[in-house]
């Protein structure tokens, strides 16, 4: 569906951590594209490598123990893994903004909200302190915090969680970045606040046209926000495609499992939620075959031995599952819901 310009192209990213227990293979060859003005949602259970993927692009994983062993993240023709500066300016905070999960701990407790927003403008835009503060007040108003001028001179402890997250958004958007990375921006917030924050993000995206990479484990959030979806499992991409592909023509058994575990209005109150049994594999020594093998209801003998690659199951729709192999004779049973039926696109 989307033919817009690709602003960020990540290829074959691999990240490891040295720990006392051994080497954790947290991200194992992840590739994806982010298109201008669109929202890419990255979903998957906690611990599957979503945060590490984006943080390694932003140079935020602690090294050591962390280590990027391969891969590239190309923004405007430049690989950000090795160089975060374009024209002598750090792309972080200017071209790419980031919002984190816990707003209560993600802001400096001894600095005013206004100063924290303003310093990005001082550093990247060369604003004077007073110019930057004036702009910070505008930005605080932009994220719909009332009484912006007064709020700018207050400290994080004087804000509620929702307002702190709004402030984080104002801060990350201060320099009008072309990409906003939001790592579970609503997970730590109340349900009603969650909806407000998501609405705010969507409105700002319409206004500013930035691309959003939205990390979440909440499929409800995905349905609301995303253009494209990437499903991660045990440090790998297991399925990717447009939201319609992944939601309604989901191909990978893990995506099916997530879908069945998600409460949905369409399913009605009588629909039983089916959690996925078992737990993800040990990332110290990832299985040589399919990572989902131990939990997969469709697992076949070959799945344990052979590592599946990402197979095309439609236009810009991929799945890492042997069921989608051209030679496979089996069909994905999918869910027994009429319009969500097993419309796996077989090539």
């Amino acid at each position: 569906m989307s033919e817009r310009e690709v602003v960020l192209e990540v290829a074959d990213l691999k990240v490891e951590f040295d720990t006392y227990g051994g080497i954790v293979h947290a991200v194992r060859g992840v590739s994806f594209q982010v298109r201008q003005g669109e929202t890419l949602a990255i979903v998957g259970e906690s611990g599957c490598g979503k945060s590490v993927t984006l943080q390694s692009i932003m140079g935020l994983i602690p090294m050591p123990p962390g280590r990027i062993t391969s891969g590239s993240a190309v923004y405007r023709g430049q690989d950000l893994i090795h160089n975060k500066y374009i024209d002598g300016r750090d792309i972080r905070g200017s071209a790419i903004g980031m919002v984190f999960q816990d707003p209560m701990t993600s802001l400096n407790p001894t600095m005013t909200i206004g100063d924290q927003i303003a310093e990005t403008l001082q550093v990247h835009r060369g604003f004077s302190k007073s110019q930057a503060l004036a702009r910070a007040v505008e930005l605080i108003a932009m994220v719909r915090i009332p009484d912006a001028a007064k709020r700018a001179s207050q400290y994080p402890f004087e804000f509620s969680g929702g307002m702190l997250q709004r402030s984080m958004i104002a801060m990350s958007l201060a320099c009008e970045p072309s990409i906003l990375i939001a790592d579970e921006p609503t997970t730590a917030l109340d349900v009603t606040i969650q909806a407000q924050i998501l609405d705010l993000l969507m409105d700002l995206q319409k206004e500013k046209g930035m691309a959003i990479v939205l990390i979440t484990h909440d499929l409800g959030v995905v349905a609301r926000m995303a253009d494209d979806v990437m499903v991660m499992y045990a440090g790998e991409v297991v399925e990717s495609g447009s939201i319609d592909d992944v939601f309604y023509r989901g191909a990978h058994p893990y995506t099916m499992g997530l879908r069945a575990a998600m409460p949905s209005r369409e399913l009605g109150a009588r629909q039983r939620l089916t959690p996925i049994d078992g737990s993800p594999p040990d990332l110290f020594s990832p299985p040589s075959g399919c990572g989902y093998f131990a939990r997969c209801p469709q697992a076949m003998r070959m799945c344990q031995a052979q590592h599946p690659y990402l197979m095309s199951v439609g236009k810009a729709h991929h799945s890492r599952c042997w069921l989608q192999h051209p030679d496979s004779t089996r069909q994905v049973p999918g869910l027994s819901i009429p319009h969500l039926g097993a419309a796996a696109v077989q090539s």
Partner: protein
Amino acid sequence: MLRYILKRLLHGLITVWFIATATFIAMHAVPGDPLSGEKAMTPEIRRNLEAKYGLDKPVVEQYRIFLVNMAKGDFGISYTQQNREVNDIIREGFPVSATLGILAVVFAALGGILLGALTATYRNRLPDVVIMFLVILGISVPSFVFAALGQLALVKINAWTGFTLFPVAGWGTVMHMVVPSLVLGLGTMAYLTRLMRSSMLEVTNTDYVRTARSKGLPPARIFLKHQLRNAILPVVTVLGPAIAAITTGGFVVELVFAIPGLGRYFVQAVQQLDYTVIMGTTVFYGAFLVLMVIVVDIVYGLIDPRVRLKA
């Protein structure tokens, strides 16, 4: 902020009253009559003193008089040095002791913060390993050992080089002050270094420092504005007790380096059971310490808005 300061001052006043009362009780718990020390005393002085302090009166009445005099800032007259006022002794000795103590505290605090930040930055590398070894030494060796060693080293150095940059003992010039205050502050500095190091490491791993990095700020700015200020907070918290530790350590260092501070009079007074001097200097020192702790609290409030604005 004003309310915060006033509240602190009120607490301080109450603390000083406690100290005064405890000192009074301790003095009266000591067996024997304050005037029957081993030093012979002319009947004239004895009568004067009995009249002044009402030592023949009931204890409660004595306590009242003691408090009233104390509130007026009158600590009385020395028992052993005829007609010498305790206030005179304090006026003479305190500025010297305070200079020594404050220099030591400044040295300990700045040194601790700098070394702590340095070791955290070079964690597990050579500067860290070397400094942390010295820190263990600094914490475990008492200050009188450093005093003696420092003096011995000075003697050797002065003899070897043939001229005296830092005098071995005495007081008067800045050069006289350097070595004693270094020696006095060393233990506290070691302790603060360790505290600052762990605090800095903790702050480095916080979400807000990660946020600062995600904003693409230059490392120097992240260090100063986001790490240092937050990491200093625990160090400032213990500065009050640290000042107390340095003050008591000062008595010994004053003795070793022959510094004419209050400590010398205090030790003398204890040896001679000169009760007014003991009580006067104790309460005065107590009040001074309380004041320093209040100053520390105010500084803390200035650094941490949560304390300043919530109080």
